[in-house]
């Protein structure tokens, strides 16, 4: 262990067959990649903390679901994808959007409901989009994104492209019929989709086992879809698995299914207490203490001497700087113009007839 560590460090600082040897203590993941994952997760954490503050002072409204504690499930999965791979998530998707390359400014502005938001303020926390970056939502009906993602896979196969689609869902979505109908379709047509279930134990206030007579891990096996389980608090294990799966799916393996075991450190949404009716304070404190994905990778980086306290603080300061900037940007961004209310309901305004029946817009303008 001792040698490996110093080897790595030397390797990382320059010269030598660094990755191979460096890999020994980092599951063979290149040091610069590990550091990037660390940087991403720190940013996600600070971003969500800032969103929490902004919500508390009324800058953000509606429903807001934080990903704190689950950062590795975004960094380690999307981090293994290509720019043109499609990603779709549920309403708990802030960090997934950031992982797919959306700017913290655009995401924060969206949470603030501003025109510069990634959805021009129309979507909000649950509906983040960036068509160019192939971040496809932001779906707030539990399980409803599963057919959609299956359609991305269908289009990829139809066109013979080399992309893949990644579909996130919470474990509670497994009890939606849409999940079953979609996985069968994906299996029948061998579609290039990875179905990633973030099992954070609870669906809102309900533990999965209380309402489900099945295990999450092998749920897709009945469709002949390969099933995998990974510790979602370990970003390196997650990243390593998804590198492999993305490659397999890209090369025609057909759909794959992953249970990512993780834990939600905060309440279901801003209105839900962190602990209470469905889980104890002790449970939350223990798991938050033991299973913080950031602490876990940090310790591995320290152990591998790829990072020290000073560098970490620098990294953290940078993350805080970015979210401060994002909050400022959001605050400064203009509100959407009410005159644009009817924009982008439709992509095409037909020459005849009324598209809008509220009598306030007989001749809808071309939509934006």
């Amino acid at each position, binding site marked *: 262990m001792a040698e490996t560590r110093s080897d790595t460090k030397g390797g990382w600082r320059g010269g030598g067959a660094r990755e191979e040897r460096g890999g020994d203590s980092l599951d063979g993941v290149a040091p610069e990649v590990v550091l990037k994952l660390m940087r991403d997760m720190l940013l996600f954490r600070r971003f969500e903390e800032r969103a929490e503050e902004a919500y508390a002072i009324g800058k953000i*409204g*509606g*429903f807001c679901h934080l990903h704190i504690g689950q950062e590795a499930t975004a960094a380690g999965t999307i981090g293994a994808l290509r720019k043109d791979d499609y990603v779709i998530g549920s309403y708990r998707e802030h960090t997934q959007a950031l992982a797919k390359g959306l700017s913290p400014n655009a995401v924060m502005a969206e949470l603030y*409901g*501003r025109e510069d938001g990634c*959805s021009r*303020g*129309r*979507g*909000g*926390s*649950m*509906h983040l989009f960036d068509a160019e970056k192939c971040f496809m939502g932001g*779906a*707030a*009906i*539990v*399980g409803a994104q599963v057919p959609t993602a299956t359609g991305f896979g269908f289009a990829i196969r139809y066109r013979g492209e080399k992309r893949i689609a990644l579909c996130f869902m919470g474990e*509670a*979505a497994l*009890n*939606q*019929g*849409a999940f079953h109908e979609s996985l069968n379709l994906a299996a029948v047509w061998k579609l290039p989709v990875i179905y990633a279930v973030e099992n954070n134990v609870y*669906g*809102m*206030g*309900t533990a999965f086992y*209380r*309402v*489900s007579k099945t295990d999450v891990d092998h749920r897709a096996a009945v469709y002949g879809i390969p099933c995998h389980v990974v510790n979602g608090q370990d970003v390196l294990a997650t990243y390593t698995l998804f590198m492999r799966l993305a490659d397999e799916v890209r090369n025609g393996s057909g759909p794959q299914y992953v249970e990512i075991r993780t834990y939600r450190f905060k309440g279901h949404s801003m209105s839900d207490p962190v602990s209470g*009716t*469905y889980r104890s304070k002790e449970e939350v404190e223990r798991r938050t203490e033991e299973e913080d994905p950031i602490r876990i990778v940090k310790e591995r980086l320290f152990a591998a001497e790829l990072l020290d306290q000073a560098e970490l603080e620098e990294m953290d300061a940078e993350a805080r700087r970015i979210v401060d900037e994002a909050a400022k940007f959001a605050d400064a961004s203009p*509100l*959407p113009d*009410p005159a644009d*209310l*009817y924009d982008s*309901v439709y992509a095409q305004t037909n020459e005849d007839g009324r*598209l*809008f*029946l*509220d*009598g*306030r*817009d007989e001749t809808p303008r071309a939509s934006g």
Partner: protein
Amino acid sequence: MAELTYREALNQALTEEMERDGAVFLMGEEVAQYQGAYKVSKGLLEKFGYRRVLDTPISELGFAGLGVGAALVGLRPVIEFMTFNFAFLALDQLTNTAAKWRYMSGGQFKVPIVFRGPNGPALQVAAQHSHACETYYSHAPGLKVVAPATPADAKGLLKSAIRDEDPVIVLEGELLYNMKGEVPENGEHVVPIGKADVKREGTDLSIVTHGPALHLALQAAAELEKDGVSVEVVDLRSLRPLDAETILASVKKTNRAIYLEQGWPFGGIGAQVASIIQEEAFDWLDAPVLRVTQADVPMPYAKNLELTAKPSLERTLRACERVLYRNGRAGR
């Protein structure tokens, strides 16, 4: 009488009916251990236990259909949809089973089931969580639909719905749950399904409405009173059965009407009511029946856009002025 919130009134109705009739049970997401996503079922698990207060998986189609099956053989299920936005997934079971089993069997079955939960836009919860679903349930014969706007009506209508022999959709208002009002405490306080309520009497103009929009209607009436306009506010309370007689009586008195609702215009409740009014009170109308609805767009998230999209006092007053011919003829 006691002052209760709308939420407490619903909770009382559930408690009283479950105490009265052992065949009544409550089922839905988060209704038991979590005490209800909106706490309407607070305390029921403790009172009645898991046998009669059941948490479900997120399987709207499945548990709605299960409820219908249980009702067909004599239980009286109360199925809570966390919000009606999620009930699109269950619509087949409501429309094709609950609404049809009795008719298709030539009257052999009763389907005494209640589907309830918050309906309509709340605050900035965006397009997928802001549906006003009145039309989806009122359109099909076989279902009954009520939409209480006050704590007293909430208690009385939910109790009637639970006692009714037919499937009843109870559309609650998420923004009404904290609203306070006087509620008769006695266990026999029921509000008859199908009876509209004139919430304010007037002579110059009728604002017909239902659900949360009632409070906007009353605001508008108060405003207009300052200009010496006497507005009658008719709260339908029930959408199906629809109390056309009360609506027509009001319009035949005032000769002018608008419909105010939280939902979309196309095929909305206002379209149905306006159509009845012009058909059956044609000769009494001094102006067309105008409608104030949600803007005909998916609900945007941004606060200012949402406000623009929702029916407002200003839009309501403008519609009233148009039918009062305050500035020229109404209509277009």
